[in-house]
Every structure is written in C-alpha cells, then in structure tokens.
C-alpha cells in the first residue's frame, strides 16, 4: 500500500473539518431514523414462499382493509416480510385494560377493608373511628367499581370493530375481569386473522411467523435502549481516561467514539435503516470497537519512540486501515446477506456497524489522529 503521508501536511486542522461536517450531517439525519416494530409497536409477519409477489398491490390491499397508513412489504428470495403499524384501537384497548386492572386491585383491597371493619364493628358497634373508616372504604369501593365499569366500557368500545358488542354483568367483578381479558385476547386473534386474510389472495403459504409488540412494551424497550447506550458510553469514557491518564488524548478518543455513533445514526436516517432492539448490539459494538483504531494511533504516536510522530501516525494509519477495512468487509457481508435473505436482526446490527465504521475512517484518520499529533507537537515544543 502506498499512500502519501497526509500527516506531513502543514495545516492539519483543515483535515478535521471533514469529520466535523459529517457530525452535523449525522445530527441532521438522525431525526429521520425509522423505528422498527420492537420500538414503534405494531405487527410483523414473515412468511416463506417462492412465488413472485406483487408487493405494491399487497401493501395497498393491507392499507385499505386494515385502515392503516404505510404498511411495509419487503421481498427477499425466500419469502416476504410485512410490517404494519400499531392499530390505534388495540393500543387504546390495552391502555383501558391496564386501567381496569389498576381499579380492580383497589377494589379488592377496599372490599377486604369493608369486611374486616364490619367484623370489628360487630364487637364495638359504636366505635366512631371504625365507622369513619367503613364509610371511607365504602366510598373507595364504589369509586373503584365505577372506574372498572368505565375502563371496561371504553375497552369494549375500542374493540367493537373486532369483536362486536359484548354484554357483561356490571355488578359482578369477576365476570367483568373475564370479559375484559377475553375481549382483548379475542380482538388480537381477530386482527391477526384479518391481516392473514388480506395477504392470502396475493401469496400462497402454509406457515407464517407473527409478532405483535404493544405500545407499553415498545416504549419500555426504547427507554431501556437509551439507558444501555448511555451507560456503555460513560463506562467506555472512564476506561479510556484510565488507560491514558491525560485529558486531551482521552477526550479526542471519546470524541471519536461519539462522532462514529452520530454518523451511524445519520446514515440510518438517510438510508432508512430501522432502529430496533437488535440495533443496540450494533451501537455498542460501534462504541467498543471503533475506538480500537483511535487507541492504536494514540498509543503509537504518544507512547512509542521510533521515527517521527508523523511517521508513526502514518504507520498506524496503514495498520488501522487494514483493520477497519476487514471489519467493514465483514459487516458488509452480513449486511448483504441480511438484505438478500431478509433477517431483520442481522440487518439492524450490520447496518449500524457498517456505516459507523465507514464514518470511523474519517473520524479517526482526519479527526482523531491530527488532534493527537498536534497535541504531541505542542507538548514537544514546550
């Protein structure tokens, strides 16, 4: 490999403009990252078929029969995958069901209070404290019963399009519980059948995989994903400070890792690579791995003594480019396989790392390495 040694240029600072420009690009596009089913909630269906499928017609049929905007139909050699956004009625019903159960828990404890206070009153019929407690518990009992009735009627209203009208005994708590749970389960099954029926005219298939992620779960996953990424970033920063024990090289390395992350997110927004649970693996890999080259450069420039710092930077670049190229090739392979055969887990992981590492080429060799080199020169001048 014969590259000119860019580190002998006089104005190293100009090089740094490129990674910084990429950072702004990343920030801008990261607002356009699509979420996959696991983080946005919704339904995903995969089925294997060798038939050729008119995906556009299938998508529009799904859109009209299910009344949802933008269902996605993706084709791969082995089969097709369909992603449908969360149905608002089902999401509403889930919320109502959770509210129903919260009221039921209150109802249970109030009803126990009413009975036990009643028993105590048999012995002390005129105890005013007990009488006040009884009145309070009875009021709570009525309120929670009312809450259950409201939540159930809201839920059944939301589910009407799927299960029709369901009658229940509004004074029987157990009966209401059963109806609340079974209506929700039944509606889920009906919706699944509806989706499958909408696909059937377009494809012949015998078995399929179906997954639903409710809004409660998806918002939980999203918050977890954020926490994990932030925790990893903090841990890595501490470790880097520990290895170098001086602020400027450490900050330069952490800037590199952060910039790679931002560029990867920007590329996901630009190329519409969805962010999902699986992406967390890719993002962490990027944080932990992309700084390998930064570490290599910093150690070679700062801690070795053969040749000039520029020469060492240049040698580090040769080694580092081979490293990153190999990794890029591996993740490009995985990315290609995942697109061809449609394996979402691989797609989300490989996509993140692939673009993050391409960004890393610029961040490390045009941003981080000049930064460290300037630092070393300034230190030597002193």
């Amino acid at each position, binding site marked *: 490999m014969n590259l000119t040694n860019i580190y002998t240029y006089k104005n190293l600072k100009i090089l740094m403009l490129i990674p910084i420009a990429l950072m702004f690009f990343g920030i801008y596009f990261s607002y356009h990252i699509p979420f996959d089913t696991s983080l946005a909630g919704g339904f995903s269906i995969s089925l294997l078929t060798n038939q050729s499928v008119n995906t556009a017609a299938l998508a529009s049929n799904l859109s009209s029969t299910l009344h949802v905007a933008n269902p996605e139909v993706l084709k791969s050699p082995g089969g097709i995958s369909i992603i449908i956004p969360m149905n608002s009625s089902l999401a509403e019903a889930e919320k109502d069901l959770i509210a129903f159960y919260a009221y039921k828990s209150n109802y249970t404890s109030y009803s*126990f209070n009413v009975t036990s206070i009643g028993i105590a009153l048999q012995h002390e019929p005129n105890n005013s404290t007990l009488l006040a407690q009884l009145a309070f518990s009875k009021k709570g009992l009525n309120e929670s019963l009312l809450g259950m009735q409201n939540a159930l009627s809201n839920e059944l209203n939301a589910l009407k399009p799927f299960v029709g009208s369901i009658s229940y005994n509004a004074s029987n708590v157990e009966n209401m519980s059963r109806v609340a749970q079974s209506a*929700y389960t039944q509606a889920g099954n009906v919706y699944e059948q509806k989706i499958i029926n909408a696909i059937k005219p377009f494809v012949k298939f015998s078995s399929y995989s179906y997954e639903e992620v409710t809004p409660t779960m998806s918002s939980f996953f999203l918050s977890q994903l954020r926490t994990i990424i932030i925790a990893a970033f903090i841990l890595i920063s501490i470790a880097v400070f520990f290895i170098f024990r001086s602020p400027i090289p450490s900050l330069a390395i952490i800037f590199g890792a952060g910039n790679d992350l931002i560029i990867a997110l920007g590329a996901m927004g630009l190329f519409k690579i969805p962010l999902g649970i699986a992406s967390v693996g890719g993002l962490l890999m990027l944080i932990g791995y992309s700084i390998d080259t930064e570490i290599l450069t910093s150690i070679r420039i700062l801690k070795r003594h053969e040749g000039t710092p520029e020469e060492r930077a240049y040698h580090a670049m040769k080694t580092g480019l081979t490293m990153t190229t190999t990794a890029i090739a591996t993740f490009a392979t995985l990315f290609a396989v995942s697109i061809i055969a449609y394996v979402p887990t691989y797609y989300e992981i490989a996509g993140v790392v692939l673009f993050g590492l391409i960004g890393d080429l610029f961040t490390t060799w045009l941003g981080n390495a000049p930064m460290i080199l300037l630092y070393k020169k300034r230190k030597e001048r002193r």
Partner: protein
Amino acid sequence: MAKLIDYLKDRRILSLIIIVLLLLVLDIFYGAGPPYYLHFGIEFTNGTQIPITLEQPVNPDTMSRIISILQQRVSTYGLKQVTVEGIGNSNIYVIIPSTSGKEINATINIIQSQGVFEGIVNGVEALNGSDILSGSIGVVPPTTFNGNVSWAVDFFVTQSAAERFAKVVYGQANKPLYMFLDRPTSSIVLINATLLKNASLQLSFQQALSALQSAASFGSESIPVEVYEPNGSNWNSLYSFFAAHNSSYRNVILAKNTPKFMVENLTRLNYSIVYVSVQNMTPEFEPVSNPLNPTSTSYIVSSWPAIGLLSAPLLSPGVTNGLSNGSLIQSYQISGYAPPSLPLESKLSYAQQQSEMIASILSGGALPVHIIVGTPKVIPPTLGKHFLYISAIAAILAVAVVTLIIVIRYRRAFLVLPIMLTTFTELFIIVSVIGLIGTIDLAAVAGMIAVVGTGVDAQIIITDELITGKSEAMKFKLGNAFYIVWADAILLIIAMLPLLFSTSLVDIVGFAESAILGALLGVLVTRPAYGAIVSIHYGEKGEEKKEEKKEGVV
C-alpha cells in the same frame, strides 16, 4: 519450514487444541442430543414466545414469585421445556418449543387460568376459593418462641361459607383439612406400588393405601387409586377394572415412568393420559397421634401433587365445636411449626415458605398482580431452518472475506491456514460454550460474526508487528502488539457490559455474550496461538534472513 511437532510443543497452541477437544467431548456427552446437540433459540428450532405484560411494575422479589408461579402452572399441566423469563420489571416471556395452535392456546389458557381451591374434610367440601374474601389472605411473619418457629396464614370467609364450614367440620377435631388446588375430576390414579412404601415411617402397604384413598375421597367425585406392581404381575386384574370403568372416567393420571404397555392399553380403552412427574406422583405421609388414644398412630397424606393435594393441616378443636358461643367464626388461621430438627436459619425460611405456599393455595395460585397476555410470536419450523441456513452461510462468508483481505494485504499464502484455523476454532468455542450453558439465537450468531470481523484486528496488529516490523526480537514485538490487543479487547468488553446485564432486552443479550466471549477468547487463547504459529513459522525464516543480511554487510 517448521515441523508439525514444533507447533505442538508450543504451550499456547497446545492449550487451544486441548480446549477444543474438551468442548467437543462436552458437546457430545452433555449436549441436548440429536438433532441439535447444543441449545438453540426458537428462531432456529421453531417455537412460540408469548409476551405477558404486568398491570404495574413490580420489584424483583415479586417478579421472581410471579415467574415461579407461572412455571409451576405450566409444569403441573405436563408442558415440557417451557421457559418463563422476566423482562425488566413489568414484562414476562413464556417460551414453548412448539408451534401447534392447540398447544399455544392450551398454554395461554393455563397462564390466564386462576386455580380453583377446594378444602375437603372427611370426603365433604368444607371450603372453596369463592368462600374466601379476596384480599383477606394474610401471611403472618414467622415467630420464634423457645427456639421453635411457627408460621401462620390468616383469612376471612363469607358469612354463608362460615355457616357451611362450621357444619362440615363439626366433631372432626384433629382430622385433616385436605387442601386441593385444581383437583382433577373424572380421573383415576395409577400408582407404582413401590411409592406406597415408606420405610422411615414404618408404614404398611395397607395403611398407605387407605391413607391415599381417604385423601382422594370426595363423595361421587372420589378419585379411585389403583396400584400396579412394577413387574406387571397384577396388570390383568387392573385391566379389567379399567375396562369396566371407561364410561364413567375419562382420564388416567400416571407417572412418566409407567410401563409403556400399560399406557398403550389404557389409550386403547379410550382414556386420556395425564402425565405427572415421578416426584409429583410420590405422596408424602404424616403420622397423626390421636389425643384420646396416644398409643395408636394413624397416617394421613400431607401432600400428593398428582391429584392437586398440596397441604393437609389438622383442624383444631376450637373450630370443630360448632356454634358453641352463638357467634359464627369468619376469620380463620392455618398455622404450624417448622420441623424442630432443623437449625434456626432453615426453620425461619421453612416457615416463610410454608406460609407463602398456603397463602398461594388459598388464593387459587393467584398471581400478585394482574397480567395481560399478548399475541404469541410464532416461528414456524421452515422459517427456523431458513434462519439457521442463512446464519451458517453468513458466518462462512465472513471468515472467507476476512481471510481474503489478510492474504491480499500481506501477500503471504501461508497466513490463510492459521487465520482460518484460529477463526474457526474461535467460532467453535463460542458456539459450544453458549450452546451448552445458554441459548444460541440470532443475536448470538450476529455477535459471533461480529467477533470474526473485529477479532481479526488482533491478528492484523500481531502480523504487522511481527512480519513487517524491523529489527527487534520476536518476543518484544509480540509483547508490544499484545498491549494494544488487550486494550482493545477490554474496551469492547466494557462497552458490552450494560447489555450483558440487561434484564430487559433479552432478545439481544446473546450478542453481548458472543462478543464478550469472543474478545476474551481472543486475548487469552486464540490470538496467542495465532501469534505462536506465525512467530514459529516466520521466526525461523526471519532469523535466517537476518543472518544473511549481516553476512552481506560484512
């Protein structure tokens, strides 16, 4: 060219070989067995994942209680290999290795079903789940007195239940209250004769049988107890009993190790077979002394999970005297002592467990919070095979691409072999370790492929320092390289730690497992071996070259 024996003599190479051989043996002897020796996730083998959302977030204690209740529910119904996994503090996955609609629905029903509690005294129902006021069941913390630890559970019953209870238990002091959870109906129990012998209690066969029969009696819904000799000697008479009763009973409850021919015969007689584990089929007996006649000991069955009998506390004379003082008792307590032979610590935990178990039976095995069962995610077998096939192809391609780049970069064909060898053995080790102690899922395989691509960095750094470096000694250069290799590996592991310990994103934890294992193996085993191979090969050549050069200079 170094001889094979030179390579084998190296400690680093030898330890790699030993580890690989050891894992191979473990895979074959301790793996799950054909067709998959290692444990694969449902994405590969097919199966169903049922998501459950809790009504509200719970603390870890409650979460583990919910998980164990769910586990018990599904396991008592004979569902095999069901995994119940907590996700964060408000979600649970139940994973079953089946995609049949029938089994999925059965599992969902079991998860949702509240158990039914029945308390039977002397063959008559004294209490049932709906008699107990919901929310009234309270566990009294264990109390210690004179070194004895007692436990107790309080509960209230409705007024009408209190009247019925008083009538049923009248005059039954010191008789057991058989507490059942989901007592089977229309069933016959077929039990191995050896389970009726309990040497430590000096219990005769006849005593054991009559204790079982009285525990199983409940008027017209009594469960007949049939005993078979393990050698099959009494099968003919049993067969005629079963043949005569197949119109009045539908199910036969039997242990999994019941002789096959008996099961086949029963199936032919149109019985449905309900399998229970041998452990659940084994009854526990307890001696009961009669206060009026202390010399005669009778025996009761204190637990027999096969028919849902989970506990049998004795009725105290206080509750069996009827309406003695004119007021009806609505609050009751079930209490007992921890075995006196245990050390104090174990007594306390025994008492805690016992009271929690009783509370759980009384509430019909209810969960501490309400649950919402979501739509199951089903991976059909064809899709699982497809994923497995794609993953294998992706892994092989990744190794090939990496090897190709290295060979092109360094233009040395010799490197192909050690690089492929170390990469493949690394993959083999990761697959074996995760497959033996964890689950190989899509995320884990993605992690393995990532390790192929990133772990090769170490090989590049080593190769660069070893064969393109200048004059320093091999050993020093290797040390140089490993400093960077170690730093890289540690940083990768640190970045993965938050995911490894995540209890919420379990779908992707496999990625962190593979990546961390790969990074560790890299620095500890496979890269040192690679370094050894390369330095043995080029070391000798290098030395020769150096000598030639020196001569030239001279």
